[in-house]
């Protein structure tokens, strides 16, 4: 097969980008596939063509570094490309990709998945109201278009992201109505030792916080948003003091950024047979992979947040490890980079993830009437009833209620549903795995999946016995 690639990399963030770079340097024929118009992933997202000039941020610098290295590299980058299915065919992988409105097939000997993260948002009353966006989602909006979700925004969620988002809103000229975080100052104090090794990030975080305090933006520690008000759009939010269980301040606002930490996008790895395990300090269910990305599945390598939330610094380092490992395994002479720097970065990443994972009491915020499955408008009550009547796995709830059969494929409800199953059946969350992943990995227009065809050429098998 003349167009057989040595290595295909899925994802062009810090992990995928660096994997592609090192693999291409080794002489391997590398193709990198990514949904975004430019490399960078979510964390170093490139700007859209609408931005002609803008001040440089650390994310811009890091992203530009990766983008320029990739543009000089021999790796082929297919942008605006969606991988919708991957299958092992003998000694190679076949990837169905959607590009320019048509399906193409890409083949490769080895596959590196760097599928990154998505975010967990604890369902609360009104979280489906237009004007509520994800906390990580907000950063995409900022990085890509330097635009704001509204004129006056409440920022709520866990971990460092909440302060980054608040700071970015101020930098882009918006108003932060309040910062609301379930974390306490004590949570942060506990995390500080692991941050010492990353003084730059620590200093940046301190600056964000100091700026918010100087600007007299209310910061509600140990609080969560308990309800979003408004029908067609957000008009305000209510809060709850988590420790005391009493109502906190309410705020008028036209937008809310809401998030409870990142979770690994494991569906592709899972689909290809990688084993998964539950590790809350990595964001929940993660595929099993070595530090250099190798897995038990022949020719499959994993790196970056897609195999556990460790942050951008660790992702970049693991990308290099995985790219080199995959190239070496194919017989190319690639370096054998040390694992230590990744391990150091990982410690910091894990500490941030620990700050970001939802508190145990977060699930109480999801009232019986709260929508849990957005695609099918299913409330917690709908899901709970299904569990009570005997559906005790995520697959069973999906079958009975369609939770996970909608367009998002369960990406925004499965974590909450698994938590409900665990709670109602007295199981540990680690005993409630996610449902069976299936293609397409993203919704695909049927005509684009089918492709152009002549009816007479359809390979219609012989009919069933009469």
């Amino acid at each position, binding site marked *: 097969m003349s167009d057989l690639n040595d290595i295909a990399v899925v994802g062009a963030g810090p992990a995928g980008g660096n994997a592609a770079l090192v693999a291409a340097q080794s002489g391997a024929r590398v193709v990198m596939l990514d949904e975004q118009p430019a490399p960078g992933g979510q964390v170093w997202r490139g700007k859209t063509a609408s931005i002609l000039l803008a001040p440089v941020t650390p994310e811009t610098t890091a992203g530009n570094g990766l983008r320029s290295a990739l543009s000089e590299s021999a790796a082929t980058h297919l942008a605006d490309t969606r991988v919708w299915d991957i299958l092992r065919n003998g000694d190679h992988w076949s990837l169905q990709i959607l590009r320019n409105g048509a399906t193409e097939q890409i083949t490769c000997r080895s596959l590196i998945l760097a599928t990154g993260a998505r975010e967990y948002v604890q369902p609360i009353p009104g979280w489906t109201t237009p004007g509520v966006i994800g906390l990580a989602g907000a950063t995409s909006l900022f990085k890509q278009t330097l635009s704001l979700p509204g004129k006056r925004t409440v920022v709520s969620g866990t971990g460092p992201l909440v302060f980054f988002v608040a700071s970015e809103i101020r930098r882009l000229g918006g108003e932060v109505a309040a910062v609301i975080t379930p974390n306490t100052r004590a949570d942060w104090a506990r995390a500080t030792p692991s941050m010492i090794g990353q003084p730059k990030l620590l200093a940046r975080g301190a600056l964000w916080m100091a700026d918010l305090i100087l600007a007299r933006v209310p910061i509600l520690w140990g609080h969560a948003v308990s309800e979003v008000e408004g029908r067609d759009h957000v008009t305000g939010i209510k809060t709850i003091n988590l420790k005391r269980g009493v109502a906190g301040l309410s705020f008028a606002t036209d937008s809310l950024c809401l998030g409870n930490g990142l979770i690994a996008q494991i569906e592709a790895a899972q689909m290809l047979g990688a084993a998964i395990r539950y590790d809350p300090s990595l964001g929940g269910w993660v595929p099993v992979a070595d530090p250099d990305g190798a897995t038990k599945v022949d020719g499959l390598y994993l790196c970056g947040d897609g195999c556990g939330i460790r942050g951008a610094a660790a992702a970049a380092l693991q990308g290099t490890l995985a790219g080199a490992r995959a190239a070496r395994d194919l017989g190319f002479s690639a370096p054998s980079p040390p694992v230590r720097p990744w391990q150091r970065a990982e410690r910091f990443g894990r500490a941030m993830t620990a700050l970001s994972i939802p508190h145990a009491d977060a699930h109480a915020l999801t009232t019986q009437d709260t929508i849990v499955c957005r695609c099918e*408008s299913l409330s917690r009550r709908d899901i709970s009833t299904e569990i009570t009547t005997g559906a005790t796995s995520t697959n069973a709830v999906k079958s009975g209620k369609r939770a996970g059969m909608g367009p998002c494929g369960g990406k925004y409800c499965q974590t909450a549903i698994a938590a409900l199953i665990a709670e109602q059946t007295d199981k540990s969350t680690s005993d409630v795995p996610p449902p069976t992943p299936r293609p397409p990995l993203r919704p695909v227009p049927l005509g684009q999946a089918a492709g152009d065809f002549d009816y007479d050429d359809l390979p219609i098998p012989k009919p069933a016995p009469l």
Partner: protein
Amino acid sequence: MIRLVPNHATRIKRSETVTFTFDSEPVQGHLGETLVAALMRAGHLNLREAPNDSAPRGAFCCMGLCQECAVIVDGQVVEACRTVVSADLVVERA
């Protein structure tokens, strides 16, 4: 007031504005930005009705996953967060 995080709004230079339509209403957006950004700026947050309860929905994940910002362009359902603004773009509710 002392700001430790500077306001960069005035230092950002954007592309020309173009007009497209959302639900037959003219909307201004910057050429090349994402449809979601333009619609949000114009106050069009409510993009679709949810099934079953018909509740209003708008952009949520902003990274092409949640499908809440699904709109129709040229007869095809697309994610507004992954669609680029151009002049005379006709955007309909899904």
